[in-house]
């Protein structure tokens, strides 16, 4: 009897252990067991430059063709080709990179989302791009937009190559606008609210506004009001230890959504990025706020004409448009741990990506904006923007961004966690469980704890 009982206990513990404990530890490892889990042999000589990226769908096709062209040239000149490796979402991508660095087998280059910037700077596992450029004037740094470079310039040094850069814009269904007697989407939040009853049409099952419930838009609304997200000048003058959400500026965007939601004017489809776009394209919402990187796809696939406007400002701040929008998207990092000769070739590839022809190709095929002045100038001269005014909006918005800490955007080592807390607050406020003030205050307390823990760890 005793024996039997023991056997069940053993069995049940084994079963439950098997399902719970593997996931974390199988993916980590430790100082002593690093060898066991990863092998600790030296990195072999590479046959190709490994480039890990997170582009999917149409964007990955564009990236593939850009790299293919590079490789054709590389084959002709005896250089190493570039091997693209898709590593999943941005979150998956940074995790895989972290494990690769811990296992001492990093790729040469990795594309990482903008909110991973501080973590990578602090990791000591990267080579700052400026060190690789080392004064090479052919790289064309002087042609690059300061509004773009400033985001990835940390501790006075450009750390990575801004590649897929975007900001938020407002998309409008022109049919709905015309029915409401308008030609362009409202440029203020107050204007959106005022126009909403006319833009919505319940007989057609159309609400006024839809957007992904992401912290990114909350951060943009703060920046647009000239407010900071974290202290230390948004983490730009030092490692931040405090978050600032529960301010009047912070509550403004949540209150706006809460009011629209209460009137049935806001189609809340949750945190994901795709459902609001689907909603808008199906004609179920008159307005959509999301990244400019959807601009070409939306224009081609929507069954109605689309008009794009700048991310709204807050009218009550007065006539002065105080802040810009913050750069979103990702950048490409050069990793330590590979042979110097290989990194020289990797740099050659980065230079190719930053070159005017590639930047132009990337921009006109994806909607991410170019990082070079000469590309914008040339497209302008050829009448590209006159023919595609929607693509021009994000560029104008970017160029109008002031040189302020708010517009530079925040840096934080625990940024993904901050986003989680903010998004929870957004959901709490919209779910009607609580007002925006208490919800944001709770998020702020948790975020401050995270920021301080990170600071202590460094």
């Amino acid at each position: 009897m005793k024996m039997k009982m023991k056997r069940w206990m053993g069995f049940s513990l084994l079963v439950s252990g098997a399902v719970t404990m593997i996931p974390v530890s199988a993916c980590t490892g430790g100082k002593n067991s690093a060898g066991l889990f990863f092998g600790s042999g030296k990195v072999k000589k590479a046959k190709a430059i490994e480039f890990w990226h997170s582009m999917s769908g149409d964007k990955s096709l564009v990236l593939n063709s850009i790299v293919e062209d590079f490789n054709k040239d590389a084959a002709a000149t005896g250089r190493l080709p570039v091997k693209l490796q898709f590593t999943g979402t941005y979150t998956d991508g940074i995790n895989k990179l972290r494990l690769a660095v811990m296992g001492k087998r990093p790729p040469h280059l990795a594309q990482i989302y903008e909110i991973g910037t501080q973590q990578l700077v602090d990791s000591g596992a990267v080579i700052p791009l400026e060190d690789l450029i080392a004064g090479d004037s052919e790289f064309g740094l002087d042609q690059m937009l300061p509004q773009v470079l400033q985001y990835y310039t940390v501790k006075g040094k450009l750390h990575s190559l801004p590649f897929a850069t975007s900001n938020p814009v407002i998309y409008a269904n022109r049919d709905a606008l015309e029915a409401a007697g308008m030609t362009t989407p409202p440029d203020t939040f107050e204007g959106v609210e005022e126009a909403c009853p006319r833009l919505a049409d319940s007989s057609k099952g159309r609400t006024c506004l839809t957007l992904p419930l992401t912290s990114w838009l909350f951060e943009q609304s703060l920046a647009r009001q000239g407010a900071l997200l974290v202290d230390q000048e948004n983490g730009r003058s030092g490692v931040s230890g405090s978050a600032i959400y529960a301010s009047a500026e912070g509550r403004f965007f949540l209150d706006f959504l809460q009011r629209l939601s209460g009137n049935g004017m806001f189609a809340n489809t949750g945190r994901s990025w795709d459902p609001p776009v689907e909603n808008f394209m199906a004609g179920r919402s008159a307005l959509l706020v999301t990244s400019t990187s959807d601009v070409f796809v939306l224009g081609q696939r929507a069954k109605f004409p689309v008009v794009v406007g700048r991310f709204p400002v807050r009218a009550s701040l007065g006539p002065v448009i105080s802040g810009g929008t913050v750069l979103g998207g990702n950048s490409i990092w050069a990793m330590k741990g590979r042979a110097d000769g290989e990194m020289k070739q990797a740099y050659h590839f980065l230079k190719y990506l930053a070159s005017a022809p590639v930047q132009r190709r990337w921009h006109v095929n994806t909607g991410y904006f170019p990082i070079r002045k000469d590309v914008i100038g040339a497209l302008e001269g050829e009448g590209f923007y006159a023919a595609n005014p929607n693509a021009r909006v994000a560029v104008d918005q970017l160029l109008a961004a002031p040189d302020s800490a708010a517009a530079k955007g925040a840096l934080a080592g625990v940024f993904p966690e901050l986003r989680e807390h903010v998004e929870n607050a957004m959901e709490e406020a919209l779910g009607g469980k609580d007002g925006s003030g208490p919800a944001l205050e709770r998020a702020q307390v948790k975020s401050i704890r995270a920021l301080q823990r990170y600071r202590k760890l460094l």
Partner: protein
Amino acid sequence: MSENSADSATRSAWLFLAPALFLMFIFTVAPALFSLILSFHDFKPFSFAMVPVGLDQYMELAASEDYRASLMATLQFAALVVPGSVIGSLAVAVLLDQTPFFRSIFRTIFLIPVGISPAMAAMLWVFLFNPTSGFLNYLLSMVGIVGPAWLSDPDWAPLAVSLTTVWKEVGFNIIFLMAALAQVPVELQEAAWMDGANALRRFWHITLPSISPAMFFVTVVSVIHAFESFGQIHILTRGGPAGSTGVLVYQLFRDGFENSRLGMAAAEAVILFIIIGAVTLVQFFVARYLKGAPQ
């Protein structure tokens, strides 16, 4: 002589078990033990530099209202999924057992969800649940009901996620229940029928006791599955809205792989291990108390 042969039998048994045990040690036991060590450490970004923090992470979890909310979300999820999938699959299995003609085709239909990966299945449901263009609310609108925002309303999201899980679980469970139903002695059923027992009584007094080992197995596995559900939650709600579907495994994933807190995630894994171990043990004891030990 006999002792010798028993000895060598034991020895060869170990020999045959050795490869499996070795792999199990490498891939299950060692990482599990390592999780325990990890749970007392924090990491600097991107490095193996472990910073010992003692019980700090466990203390933080104990004090965290988010973690308590996550525990409640898990219990709520299990309370919706386990009865739903066990009773649902029993009903389906019995119906299929009674209708031999349709059995194979419907069994196949019910098995399809098991074959689809959780991510694919959840993607399907994302479309079905869409509040404005989804099929579910379209059906509801045909009978004049304005459907809820399934995935973005904190009151409905747990139900929506549970529904998806039950839909997937039922196919898995009916495999075992149908096999057990096929083993129920026909003589017993016939004898009871001769004695005038109606269908309900025959089910309650003959079928159910006969398949109770399978029911027990299905229940235990459903509970464990409920506690370790991840894929569908990740796709459908990412733990939201407002944490309403943020079950323990999801919290663990988020801390480990979004917030880069591997030590914290390990501490959560240890706690989850203890919880699932305890729940499973309790189930074994209850089963033994009710009806002797399962074999």
